[in-house]
């Protein structure tokens, strides 16, 4: 391969990405020059839409694999998952970064995004979410930074980071627990507005458990895509193990959800045909029933295609749940129908596309998939160079 032919190939997906980014660019100009009214379908009756319901609520949940896997490796000492920690942390870091960018679009005055740093209202769930997300983004940046420091062979920062890894991971798990559940807590304040299918005093627990479940599904999803895109071997034994955990998490979520719906008398409402009933049914079927049924078979858990299918369904069910909580469930009480404008959708797709792009760039220029094997447990103080370079 000569250097003269190093122009990027135009593949179908790259063309799609370019188109999405072009529309996103237009929408960005519109949003910041003409305001939210021009760029979105939001209104007084529906102040929160796709950018909160999908970009924030789903984006944060999809990045949950970062804290679960980091905990598995660094707190539970399950070393065998080490090979998939770094790409998962990268996914999480990009995910949270994109959530922050999405907020810059959605906030009425994005240049004031720093206000919660100095203007406090501890009674507000959103205040807590803002702080946790800011701190966690820092944690993720620090957890991913070894990949950057290795590239530039900066040993001192690497050593410092290795020393603080465990406390960093513990802080990361605590922060994640708080804000993943708090995204659900955001909706505790609307008992008279949110449909009983989705309003529950257990919202924080339900959001937390589902985040763990979808985090695992995302690990499987990302592993498959990376294997295809970068021509890598897929670590099936690890994914099979993760799928067993996912099975238990899904079962637990299903039980919690069912008990919650039953105890509040919400199941009775399913007798009436309505949009809400349809969407709840779809959410439960796609996100819970079918994946659970499939995961019960070892043949599925050990098959690459089977696991991928299950992961896609769990992710779809999760997205549907978050959108149901934030949009579907609020429509009836709002007296309005909300469907995002194409400009809103283009921004969301652009952010997702940018995420894929950044991931690919990171894979090309950094050591994402083959971090150096764990260094010798002993560090000879007299020879600092040996410690991180040798196996």
């Amino acid at each position, binding site marked *: 391969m000569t250097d003269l032919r190093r122009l990027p190939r135009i593949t179908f997906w790259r063309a799609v990405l370019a188109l999405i980014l072009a529309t996103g660019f237009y929408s960005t100009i519109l949003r910041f020059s003409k305001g939210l009214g021009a760029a979105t379908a939001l209104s007084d*009756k529906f*102040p929160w839409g796709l950018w909160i319901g999908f970009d924030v609520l789903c984006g944060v949940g999809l990045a949950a694999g970062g804290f679960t896997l980091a905990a598995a490796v660094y707190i539970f000492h399950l070393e065998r998952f080490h090979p998939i920690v770094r790409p998962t942390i990268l996914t999480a870091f990009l995910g949270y970064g994109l959530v922050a960018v999405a907020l810059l679009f959605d906030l*009425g*005055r994005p240049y*004031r995004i720093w206000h*919660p740093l100095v203007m406090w209202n*501890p009674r507000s769930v959103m205040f807590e979410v803002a702080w946790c997300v800011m701190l966690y983004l820092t944690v993720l940046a620090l957890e991913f930074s070894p990949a950057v420091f290795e590239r530039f062979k900066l040993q001192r920062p690497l050593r410092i980071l290795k020393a603080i890894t465990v406390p960093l991971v513990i802080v990361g798990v605590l922060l994640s627990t708080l804000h993943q559940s708090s995204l659900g807590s955001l909706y505790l*304040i609307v008992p008279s507005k949110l449909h009983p299918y989705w309003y529950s005093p257990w919202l924080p627990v339900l959001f937390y458990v589902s985040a763990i479940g979808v985090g695992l599904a995302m690990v499987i999803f990302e592993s498959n895509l990376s294997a295809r895109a970068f021509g890598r071997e897929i670590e099936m034994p690890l994914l099979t193990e993760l799928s067993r955990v996912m099975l238990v998490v899904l079962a637990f979520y299903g039980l919690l959800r069912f008990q919650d719906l039953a105890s509040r008398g919400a199941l009775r409402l399913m007798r009436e045909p309505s949009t809400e009933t349809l969407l709840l049914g779809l959410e439960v079927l796609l996100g819970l029933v079918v994946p659970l049924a499939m995961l019960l078979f070892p043949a599925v858990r050990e098959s690459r295609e089977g696991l991928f299918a299950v992961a896609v369904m769990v992710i779809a069910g999760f997205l549907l749940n978050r959108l149901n909580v934030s949009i579907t469930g609020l429509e009836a009480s709002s007296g309005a129908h909300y469907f995002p404008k194409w400009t809103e959708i283009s921004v969301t797709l652009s952010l997702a596309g940018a995420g894929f792009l950044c991931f690919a760039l990171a894979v090309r220029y950094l050591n994402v998939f083959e971090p150096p094997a764990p260094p010798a447990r002993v560090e000879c103080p007299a020879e600092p160079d040996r410690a991180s370079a040798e196996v």
Partner: protein
Amino acid sequence: MSKSVLVDTTKCIGCGSCVIACKETNGLPQNEEKELSADTLNVVQSRAGVFVRKFCMHCQDPTCASVCPVGALKKTAAGPVVYDADRCIGCRYCMMACPFSIPKYEWKLALPKVKKCTMCAPRQAQGLPPACVEACPVQASIFGERSEMLAEAEKRLRENHSSYIQHIYGKDEVGGTSVLYLSAVPFEALGFPANVPHDPLPMYTYRVLSKVPSVVTVGALLLGGIWWITNRREEVVHAEKGGDEGVGTEGKGRRTKD
């Protein structure tokens, strides 16, 4: 010291003087609207054959003030719930959370603000009543201490038993509001949400947020403990194997692991 407005819908003649006065006082365009908006902070609606005006309820424990991440909305001792536009980041949680759907937004502007009635807090600071109360030609709205307004409302319910629904809307809803309503027809027919709880809504999140400190402390201990337990197991395995990599861990008792 906490002021209230009592709105007796049986007296309202639908003249709209309160709407005009509100727009004048707040410098808003005099376009007639059927619903509250960024330009209309007080609106008169015709529902169930009755005129009813809608504006901010100025709750005693306001949901909007509790959810605002930067504290841009605050309940004052004088009664009004006021908005500090300099703090607001435009997250619109207040709009989402308000059980009466009162706060509205300046969607068309590049630098938007949240808009709602202020119970004429600046006028009250000068000892004046809200403009809408002053403008009403038939005193359908009256202004005074909350206790006085409640007493007056109860008096009217007693003395004209058959003319009213026996309920003061705002007495207990969401823990009580500074704006109180009397009506001859069911409040739901006038467009007031019927299913608002009597607990102030901030209680719903307080029950969860109050657990945060213990989640953090218990969680930190649990995770640290698990790390320690699973860490020691591997140390023991290594010690039993005779330690092929040389000397054990360094002084801090923490191993460097990738």
